[in-house]
């Protein structure tokens, strides 16, 4: 079996463990979910801390659309934050995911299906932000984690194929660090969800 596949099998095992850890949660924590109350409260807070600005300025900068856009942006960005990603795809997966998107934008991966898949991965967080599905946490965690993990695997697979200059030892080191990370920061994995 080629060395490339050995690394991928290792990574799949790690992903399995990370998935199992996440599935022990009850739900994602509130930071991931849009709430109209939060928007109203925040808007009110902004207006009360305003310092004698003309009314049109207050309306221009502190309106529902702006607060909503900022709120959605901040919730969305959490799904691509390193601290979150590292808990669902590990350090090695982080590199894989980066290389996956890099290869697509740099036109190294050309398949249409894979490009559609890449876009879907980018859009999936909206399902959770707006809680569009009424599925159980188990199913939601699956559709929110597995596509990321798949993208990371594809990215890592391509990087193993493409980047000839990186010795395999570096990949092994990355895997060891990934495992070490899981052991050292075991509790971090649960900081994004409710028990």
């Amino acid at each position: 079996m080629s060395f490339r596949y050995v690394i991928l099998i290792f990574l799949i095992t790690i992903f399995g463990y990370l998935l199992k850890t996440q599935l022990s949660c009850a739900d994602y924590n509130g930071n991931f979910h849009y709430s109209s109350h939060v928007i109203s409260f925040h808007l009110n807070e902004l207006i009360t801390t305003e310092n004698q600005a003309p009314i049109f300025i207050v309306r221009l900068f502190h309106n529902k659309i702006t607060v909503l856009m900022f709120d959605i942006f901040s919730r969305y960005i959490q799904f691509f934050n390193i601290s979150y990603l590292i808990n669902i795809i590990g350090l090695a997966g982080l590199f894989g995911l980066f290389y996956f998107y890099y290869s697509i934008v740099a036109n190294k991966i050309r398949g249409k299906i894979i490009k559609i898949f890449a876009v879907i991965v980018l859009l999936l967080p909206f399902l959770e932000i707006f809680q569009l599905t009424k599925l159980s946490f188990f199913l939601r965690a699956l559709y929110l984690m597995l596509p990321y993990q798949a993208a990371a695997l594809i990215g890592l697979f391509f990087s193993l194929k493409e980047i000839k200059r990186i010795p395999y030892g570096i990949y092994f080191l990355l895997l060891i660090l990934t495992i070490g990370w899981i052991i050292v920061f075991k509790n971090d994995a649960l900081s994004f969800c409710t028990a």
Partner: protein
Amino acid sequence: MISFIKKKQYLLILIIIVIAFILRIYQVDRLPPGLYDDEVAIGYNAYSLLTYGKDEYGESFPLWFQSFGDYKLPVYIYVDIIPIAIFGKNELGVRFPSVFFGTLTVLFLYLFLQDILSLEPKILKNKLHTIPLLSAFILAITPWHIQFSRGAYESVVSVCFYMIGCWQFTVFYKNKKILYLVISLFFFTLASYTYHSFRILTPITILVIFYFLFSKKYINRKNIFSIALYTIVLHIPLLLFTFGSHGNSRFLQTSIFTQQALPTSTLLQSSISDFIIYPFIYIKNYLSYFSLQQLFVKAGDNVRFYSSSEFGFLFRWQLPFLIFGFIVLLREKSKIVKKIVLGIIFIVPAAVAIAVSPNALRALLLIIPFSIIIAIGIQSIVRYKTLWVKIAFAGIILLGIYETALYFHMYVSHYQNTHRVFWGSAQKKIAEEATNHEKEYYAIVINEDFLPNEKIHFLFYNDKLKPLFVNSSWQKPQKWSNKRILYIRYPLKEKMNARIKLLKNITLDTPLKEVVAQFLEL
């Protein structure tokens, strides 16, 4: 458009510098609201040197300033003597070096990129010709740099010196004149005499430079040894300081080995586990500098540093350009720009991750590669001829203008209400009110327990006033029994006895009017 930019380069950079200066100087005497402890310490030491030739502890023209025990590096304080002499002992006087060097950084980034692009192949040079101007503009308007340039932060001055060093090294690379190398190394060294994190960053940079000089045999061996000797001589005081007891103090105050809590409940609980855990904490700290949440949404490391909870280190509209620019940079067959930009991006967090992270101030140099990458992203997207890309670009720019305007609105209109408590306006008010009551009382006594570092604020705002600093257990001495004493303390809810009269509560000038101190008559 392109020919217009080429022809009007100097006019455009002048406009950008003027914009940068206005954004940094506008109302800097009252925004941020009040001088915080370190600013006051810097200002008072500069004033004390100017007036008495001594620091606050009475030491004549010291090289290191004891201050709060953190042993401040000398450059900012000595530089600040001039603005203090011109503008007086006030907010403008203390913050002016930051404003000045922050603005200059924009110019030196432009000059550095101009020179470095001239070393690139002609195709790439033509492709990236607007990058110096665009990068300078991005740096001029980005919250990360503006926010620090408006406070007395040594890091801002260090970044400027570092950029001068980079620029002069590029000039040396082009002309092969040793003088430029000497100037370059001088400014790199000056950066490490200005801010603590550059004590790590500068040696790494200098080592890279010497590796380059050796490996490329760019100058003859004899000259290399002379230059190396010159660099070592420049560093001797700093090395003695760093490895002395005082030099360690800052490290002990901030390092992960003393300050960062280790993760609990790990599978590794033995005493040797620390050796295994620290590298992971280091990696975690390193990666924290690339957290999208920190960069674009909420700069959570220190509430004081940022304009509001609405903004991160960079603008949200810069995100697509940062991503695209990074990918373009990775793909570009660039000889130098790529190596330098990626080099700084990877080295800066590596140098500062040893301390509790993320810390936007220590990693301020990161704003330079980020500005360049965002500029590359913008320029690369502009070159696309596809209609939908043009529409998307126009949309992002419109949102960008709105977000940038919102940032400045939040800064000017909200910041003083939401963040006043984190700055030193309360201490200033206490010192001013105490001065007003000075003549009515035999002595002014300040309970330091909940008003730490009040001493330096009193020195700064009125060093003629000599209050007595005490702790909560202090009792009025018998010999003062017939004297009127002004007692200043943190607002406590405890019951006061009949002989103590509440004179006034000192409140913050915010809508909530938070009480920050009580003036009592004993």
